[in-house]
């Protein structure tokens, strides 16, 4: 390998697909060494750090209609995979019906990245880890790990699996809304619930087949819905989530008909916490109930010592961020909650 003095990309072939069929045929056939590229904002830094061996990049952005956003909260909305995060964050119908989605898209990184990065690419962000998202030279010096070039996990040394962290901001929102992801491959089109797109594994993190292209994400009707996304990170810009909490509440006659939620960055997939929210049904939640549920709903969150900041603190903050998201969706001041107050004591 060439000495990597600067972060340059490896030698590769670049193909601009004209149709989804063409893109699927190329990624499905190229011996597993072709990858799709949308905005490139996750893929290119990773490639510069030699996290993948890629021979061919197949670009999706020239496909007609690739960034369309259609529908409305009354009937449900369909967002093309190529819609940029900036488009999603500012779209009036998304803001009114699917506020958590607009919030999550708007909280990704920086303006530059949001103009480039797409919704489809965001759902497929490669799970992250402090031992993995490093330059080739760094990883070589420290020792390679399971996820790339090595044979042990440096975070949990006796673990047979990789615990890299699902770090997408929009994925937990799609899971909480029970959105559907439409995938088109060589054999045709299928549709899966957002939660079914993911596997609990830091390496093999998706059920998407190699030849499949995500074409759109469909959000169900959201007439009487409120939602919120709360994100913890070190800096208010740039940084990936180290905890993200998405909550959706469906209302009926002033009480909760159903509530769902999911977490980012506390496992190798978006962690569904909906079952912890079921006692909201049929009531108008007050702050004690919200604090009680939030304190229990962090149970499936298992932060490890492989992202920014201490994992004990991230675990402690998970319940606080669930509380903030729930309060936000229930129309209460998000930061005036009982669990937030406990932090200060």
């Amino acid at each position: 390998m060439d000495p990597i003095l600067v972060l340059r990309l490896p030698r590769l072939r670049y193909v601009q697909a004209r149709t989804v069929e063409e893109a699927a045929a190329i990624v499905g056939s190229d011996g597993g060494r072709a990858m799709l590229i949308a905005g490139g904002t996750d893929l290119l830094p990773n490639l510069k750090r030699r996290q993948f061996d890629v021979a061919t990049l197949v670009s999706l952005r020239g496909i007609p209609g690739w960034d369309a956003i259609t529908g409305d909260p009354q009937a449900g909305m369909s967002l093309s995979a190529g819609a940029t995060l900036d488009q999603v964050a500012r779209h009036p119908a998304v803001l009114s019906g699917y506020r958590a989605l607009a919030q999550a898209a708007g909280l990704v990184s920086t303006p530059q990245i949001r103009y480039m990065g797409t919704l489809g690419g965001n759902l497929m962000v490669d799970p992250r880890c402090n031992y993995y998202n490093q330059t080739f030279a760094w990883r070589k010096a420290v020792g390679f790990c399971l996820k790339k070039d090595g044979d042990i996990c440096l975070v949990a040394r006796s673990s047979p699996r990789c615990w890299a962290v699902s770090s997408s901001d929009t994925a937990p929102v799609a899971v909480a809304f029970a959105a559907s992801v439409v995938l088109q491959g060589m054999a045709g089109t299928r549709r899966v619930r957002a939660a079914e797109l993911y596997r609990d594994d830091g390496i093999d993190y998706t059920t998407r087949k190699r030849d499949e292209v995500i074409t759109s994400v469909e959000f169900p009707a959201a007439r009487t819905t409120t939602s919120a996304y709360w994100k913890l990170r070190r800096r208010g810009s740039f940084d990936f989530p180290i905890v993200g909490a998405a909550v959706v509440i469906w209302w009926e006659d002033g009480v909760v008909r159903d509530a769902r939620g999911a977490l980012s960055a506390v496992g190798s997939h978006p962690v569904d916490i909906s079952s912890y929210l079921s006692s909201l049904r049929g009531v108008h939640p007050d702050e004690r109930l919200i604090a009680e549920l939030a304190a229990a709903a962090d149970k499936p969150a298992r932060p490890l010592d492989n992202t920014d900041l201490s994992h004990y603190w991230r675990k402690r903050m998970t319940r606080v961020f669930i509380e903030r998201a729930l309060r936000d969706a229930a129309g209460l001041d998000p930061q005036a909650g009982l669990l937030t107050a406990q932090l200060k004591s």
Partner: protein
Amino acid sequence: MVVRTRVNGEWREADVWPGASLLTMLRDSLGLFGSKNACEQGECGSCSVWLDGKLVCSCLVLAPQAHEREVRTVESLGAAAMNPVQEAFIEAGAVQCGFCTPGFIVAVTDLLQRDPAPNEISVREALSGNLCRCTGYQKILDAVALAARRIREPST
């Protein structure tokens, strides 16, 4: 491969290999050294340019992705005389080592084109993709306020 791009109003061709970034193409093939190469991974904004009118990090655009598209770089600003943003940066003392400056000039120009009277929250948000290691940002915020005022009331 040959990439044909309209750069600052002029169609240019560059013979690049497919893994070249737009930033490398601008600097190494087209001799436009204004866009700076610092982190090469989207973390600093010093390579900011406009691609089809949108502010992007040119280190994260593949040169072939810019084929048949429109790129504007910091060199398009103030070719004849400095633009108000450039003047304000100098007057407010917002330039120290200067490495981040071209990226900031592009990002501030982008902001003021969209919103000529931004409040401080909008300014901070719009510049959140640009890092500066020297100034501590306060003088950059002062420069933006000064530039915005000059653009609204050219005689001040």
